[in-house]
């Protein structure tokens, strides 16, 4: 049982604030992904949870215990490092068994656990090798096995797949998710790769400039982004935005078109995902600029009143640059944001 609670955690490095007042609860056995661009503070937050970094203010609780004053080894955690940190002077066996040896477990118990986790990670053939004799993918597996062998309450992973090539990454993604689900541990997984986040997470915490902007299920983050940053960060291509002016009574002028919207009397931003647009007789009038056939879809980059606007259309469509398109947004997928706060408007 290990719920993780992060309460009002902030971190400053000199004059620079890396984390502002982070509050987050991660449920037992949940797979939580911290997603954000490079430099937004993901690693710092993970290291504070691990105990490798001290928060300037705030508390960390793991499994109902306050742990922020405890050393890493007393927090019930194990960690997978970005560069693996597989010890070069130890064999794969001794690497996986490192933490168990530190706990002074008897030899046969170490052997049993090392062999079991090596089996899980499909590296049982490599136990006698040194890390210099392993590929990047194999080293990655050793790093994960070393963490799993600890049978921790919580496993922390900092961009564990970022150094692997694309194909291997996809393979490891599925495998890691399966292994972690089996192991009943709570997992915090840091990545800047939204595909990784979407495919693995139970919940995603989207981070931006040292804050958690939204913490929700992948689908929720995708469908109902809490802020313009999330809408623009998640999804490839990202969400489209257009300025909207209120016409009263829930009517809005968007791209020369009148659309139903919230009952507000100030300028908002209208937002729609590129795949939630359809060619129709009435809708937003757009001029196609670039047409990219992507096989399954047709990605059309257009211009609406000078604003960039993308649509993902069926690949059967014949669209040429310069064509004028009428794009109808799917009504239940339209979202509205307040340009002053950049937050979503209900």
């Amino acid at each position: 049982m290990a719920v993780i609670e992060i309460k009002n955690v902030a971190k400053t490095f000199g004059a620079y604030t890396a984390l502002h007042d982070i509050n987050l609860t991660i449920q037992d056995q949940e797979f939580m992904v911290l997603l954000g661009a490079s430099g937004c503070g993901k690693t710092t937050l993970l290291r504070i949870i691990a105990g490798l970094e001290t928060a300037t203010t705030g508390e960390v609780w793991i499994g109902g215990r306050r742990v922020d004053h405890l050393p890493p080894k007393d927090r019930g955690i194990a960690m997978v490092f970005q560069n693996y940190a597989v010890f070069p002077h130890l064999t794969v066996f001794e690497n996986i068994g490192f933490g168990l040896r530190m706990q002074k477990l008897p030899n046969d118990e170490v052997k049993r656990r090392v062999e079991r986790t090596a089996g899980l990670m499909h590296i049982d053939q490599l136990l006698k090798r040194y890390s210099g004799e392993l590929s990047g993918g194999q080293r990655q597996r050793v790093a994960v096995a070393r963490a799993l062998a600890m049978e921790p309450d919580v496993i922390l992973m900092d961009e564990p797949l970022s150094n692997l090539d694309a194909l291997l990454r996809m393979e490891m993604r599925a495998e890691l998710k399966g292994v972690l689900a089996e192991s009943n541990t709570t997992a915090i997984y840091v990545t800047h790769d939204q595909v990784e986040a979407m495919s693995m997470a139970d919940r995603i915490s989207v981070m931006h400039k040292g804050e958690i902007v939204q913490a929700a299920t992948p689908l929720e983050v995708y469908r109902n982004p809490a802020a313009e940053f999330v809408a623009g960060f998640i999804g490839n291509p990202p969400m489209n935005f257009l300025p909207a002016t209120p016409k009263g009574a829930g009517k809005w002028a968007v791209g020369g078109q009148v659309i139903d919207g919230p009952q507000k009397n100030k300028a908002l931003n209208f937002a729609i995902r590129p795949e939630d647009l359809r060619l129709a007789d009435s809708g937003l009038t757009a001029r196609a600029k670039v047409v990219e056939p992507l096989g399954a879809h047709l990605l059309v980059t257009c211009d609406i009143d000078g604003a960039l606007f993308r649509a993902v259309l069926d690949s059967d469509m014949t669209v040429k640059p310069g064509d004028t398109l009428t794009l109808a947004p799917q009504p239940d997928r339209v979202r509205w944001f307040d340009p002053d706060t950049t937050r979503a408007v209900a």
Partner: protein
Amino acid sequence: MNARLLPYVLILPVTLFLAVFFLYPFALVAKQAFTQGAEFTFANFRDVASHWKFPISLKNTMLLAAAVVPVQLALALLMATMVNRMKKGRDLVLYVWTIPLGISDLAAGIIWLAIFEQSGFLNSMMSGLGLVDQPVNFLSYQNPMMVFVAIALAEIWRATAIMLVILVAGIGLIPKEYYEAAEVFGASPWQRFLRVTLPLLRPSLQTALILRVVLAFEVFAVVAALGGTLFPVLMGEIYSYQFDLQNGNAAAALALIVLGISIVFTLVILRALRVPKGATI
């Protein structure tokens, strides 16, 4: 220029220099060691090894190395670890600690002589504190242990920094992530030192130990200054064969024996601290 030849051309001057000023004199010494008159012989080695001072000087040299090198290794490791942890003032501390490196071994011997001799600092301090009535002669034949300790101290003071410099460079090359991984997986600071620092430092330890051990076998000026004839060592014997006894052949033979001992120790150190294939950082 042919790219394959270029490296050889570039090392040619150094090779020539070494050949002329090292290999050639070395060959001359070897020739001297194995000849008497014009005849090839092992007699020089027999003479040198059967002389009554040989076992004593060999024993003294070995004892001194055995006392000094482990202390220096421990000190250098401690100092290197401390320096590595410092955020501010690291360079300043390193400079201060390496000052003895800039002092010649004879000067170092004289500095320590000034401390230990009958009219030295130690005596004036002790009589100033009322611990002794009259100056003690520490460095006399009545005090062989004291002579040994004084020489060992001077050697430790003088030559620990050379190991320190090598180890500081080596420790700096160990990625921080290994320490963090060890910490997360439950290693205490002492265990991190034993299980991460030491094994990953093996290449630097090899270099530092070989250098120090070989130099310890060549100890001469410090011993001459502090022990004189009270504490014969191998290098001192070579000196006295060459200059007091005017026996170049015997001096050359003894020099080759010291070389042989150095090579054996070098091989032992290389073997003991070797890094298995695939186990480098």
